[in-house]
C-alpha cells in the first residue's frame, strides 16, 4: 500500500512532534512515524 505525503517526520519525540505540528499547521500533509513510544527520551 502506498501513501503520499508532503513531508515525513521520522521520530515523534520532543523534536519530531513540534516539527510535525508546525509543518501540519503550515498546511503540509504530514506522516509522523515512531517505532517506540511517542514523547521521545
Amino acid at each position: 500500500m502506498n501513501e503520499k505525503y508532503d513531508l515525513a517526520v521520522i521520530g515523534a519525540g520532543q523534536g519530531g512532534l513540534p516539527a510535525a505540528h508546525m509543518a501540519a499547521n503550515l498546511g503540509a500533509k504530514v506522516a509522523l512515524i515512531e517505532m517506540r513510544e511517542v514523547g521521545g527520551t
Partner: protein
Amino acid sequence: MNEGCVPTKTLLRSAEVMHLVKARAFEFGVRGVEPSAISFDLAAAVARKDTIVKGVIDGIYVALRRNKNITFYAGRAEFTSAVEIRVNEVVIQADKTILAVGAQPAPAEIPGLKEAGYITNYEALSLGKLPASLIIIGAGYVGVEFAQMYSRFGAKVTLIGRSSQVMPKEEPELSEILGEILRAEGVDLHTSTEVIRVERQNGRRTVIPRRGDTEMRFEAEAILLAAGRIARVDSLGLDQTGVELDGFYLKADEQLRTTASNIWSIGDANGDHMFTHRATYDGPIAALNAVRNLDKTVDYRVVPRAVFTEPALASVGLTEAQARDAGLEVKVGKAYFKHSGRAKALGQIEGLVKLVTDAKTNELLGGHILGPHADILIHEVVAAMYNRGTIEAIAKSIHIHPTLPEVLKSAAKALG
C-alpha cells in the same frame, strides 16, 4: 519523556523526599521520624513515575488526533529510496523528510561488560527492586543524576568517570564541589579512572578500573553504563538516501539540512547540545525550511544546560577557561549561597554562582550555577545573554528579598 527528562526528574524528586525525611527531618524540627525504620519502595516510586509519564503521553496522542494534517504511524521506518519510506506494510512517499531520530546509549566497548550484563538509563528508570549495590560507568549528566538518585534510594553506589571531574565540560570549581557533595552523601566517586574490564563470577559483577598505574576492583549487584550517546540510525536505511554521518552523528548544516538535499535532521542525532530543549527548538525551524523553503538558520549561541542533582548544576555560555582560550579579556564575578538568607532558610547553602564577562564590554559570556534551583535561576542569565546584555541588567535591577536570585545579583555586583 519515556526514559529521560520527566521520568528522571520524577524519580529524583522521590530521592529528594527520601533524603529530606531520612537525613534531614530532625534538623528542621520534625520529631517521630526514626531513620532506621525508613525504607524506600522503588516499585511505588516507579509506579508514580509511570502514571505521570502516561498522563503526558496521553496528551500527546490527543494533540496528534486533533491535527487532521498529521497521520501517525507506529512502526520502524526504513528508507527504500530518498523519497520512499517503508513502515510495516505501508510505503510512504514523501518528497521531503525530517529526521528526528534521537540518540541511544553508545554500545559497551569495555571488555567483558556485555557478557557480565549491564543496564542503561532506560532500565534504571523501571527497576522493580532496588539493587543493594550499583556501579555507574560515566560521570556526565546521566551518571551523576543516577548516582545521587540510587544512593539516596539506599543503594551503595560507585561512580567512575574518566575525566578529572564529574560533569567534564562544566566549570571545574563547580564540578569539584558537586563531586564532594556526592561523596559526602556516600557515593564512592572515582575520577580520572578508566574501566578496563568487567568480570562476572557467582552472580556478582566486578568492574576493574585503573587510575594511573593503580588497578582497582569494585563488586556490585548491577552495572549502569552511562558513557555517551550516539545517533539512533541503525536499520533506517540511510544508505539509500545520501544522508551521511560524521562519526556517530548525522551531518547537518546551519539550516538543519543533511547531506541529502530533501532531508533535514534535528535534535540529539546531530550531536552537540544533546538536550531535549535543543530538539524542541530545532523542530519548527526544520519544518519551516522543509515546507516553506525558507533558509532559517539555527542559533546555538545561548543554549542552557542543567544536571538535576541536589544541588543542581546549571550553566549557559562559556566557562572562564573557554573564554580565555578564545582570546578574550575576561572578568569573573562570584557569590556563594552560604551568604544567602533564603538559602540558609531552605537549608541548602552549598554552591555558588560564577559569572563570566567580557572585561572590555561587560557583555555576559557565561553563567554557571551550582545551588538550589540552579536550573531555574540560570534563566535570568539566559535572557540577559540572548539580548547580548551586559552585567548591569542583573547587577542593577531590583531583585526580590529574600530570594535565591539575589545570589546572582551579588555575583554580578562583584564584577562591578
